[in-house]
């Protein structure tokens, strides 16, 4: 494959050298595809490295194919719907002025643990372990803290996955396919 020579545009009336460096050339289509693939691979690796995702997510990606092309996105959407519902339920239960129904909170935590396990949302799954301990010891403040953390992690993961899907879309637009 021939090397692509960078030819800077002609210097019209006073473009500084820094400005000139910022002008980019249009790379050939093949470069865009391999660049996008590399971006996706790097991003996916970082999500695994930082503990956002585990092997279960990789398995979901392997289950996606021509017969089920949106499988991962569908499952992820289901997951965040679940999160929303469960977090709302737990918030309500924990803000009861009288006695908190810890059994109900525990049941929601159990469900969240199951869901997060199934999609590979590792950080959220791990939070559920600590959360359950707070439920078992009927620690309202501890539970509230856990709930806030869960909520934060859900938002964080949602953003990360949206970025991931955007990178995948970039690959598809450049003529590639998912899974790679």
């Amino acid at each position, binding site marked *: 494959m021939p090397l692509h020579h960078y030819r800077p545009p002609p210097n019209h009336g006073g473009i500084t050298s820094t400005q000139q460096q910022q002008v980019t050339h249009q790379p050939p289509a093949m470069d865009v595809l391999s660049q996008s693939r590399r971006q996706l691979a790097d991003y996916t690796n970082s999500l695994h490295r930082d503990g956002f995702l585990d092997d279960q997510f990789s398995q979901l990606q*392997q289950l996606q194919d021509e017969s089920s092309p949106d499988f991962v996105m569908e*499952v992820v959407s*289901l997951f965040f719907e*679940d999160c929303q519902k469960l977090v709302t339920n737990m918030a309500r239960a924990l803000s009861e002025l009288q006695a908190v129904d810890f059994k109900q909170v525990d049941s929601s935590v159990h469900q969240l*643990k*199951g869901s997060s*396990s*199934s999609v590979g949302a590792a950080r959220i799954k791990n939070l559920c372990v600590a959360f359950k301990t707070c439920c078992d010891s009927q620690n309202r403040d501890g539970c509230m803290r856990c709930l806030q953390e869960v909520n934060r992690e859900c938002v964080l993961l949602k953003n990360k996955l949206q970025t991931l899907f955007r990178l995948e879309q970039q690959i598809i637009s450049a003529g590639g396919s998912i899974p790679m």
Partner: protein
Amino acid sequence: MGLILRFQLRQSISLTISEPGESTSSEHHPNSNSFLRGLQVALVESDDLNRSVTRRLLEKLGCSVTPLSSGYECLSAIGPATSSFQVVLLDLQLPDLDGFEVAARIRKFRSRSWPLILAMTSSSAAEEDDLWEKCMQMGLNGVIRKPILLQGIANELRRVVLQANRVV
């Protein structure tokens, strides 16, 4: 008195033994999971997300899956003598009926050995020995721990189906 079968079973897929050398793009090990193709599976799982994922796993293995979301739905679908399920994957933590209760009724109204019943559970490793004991006593054929992995479920299905064939 007949129970109404409320689900459309996929009649066209039959269990086939693959020819030597046959392989499909969806299998990593061409011959090891081929006998699962066309296996009629009833998947009983109340959680929408878990049901979607497990269903996809089973379909990837080539099984013909009927998803059910409660104990009563399960009994309605499996009760009739004409139902052709070969395997029931049963979540033990169902909201309406206890999973063991469902299994007991299947064993009572169908037969002691058919369909094959596999329990799905999120119990911890510590509780597992007792659980296995109880499952065997109740006439279940196997246990699968959640979260469910492709190779894990393939192995357990293979073990259970082969064992059943050997008894016959």
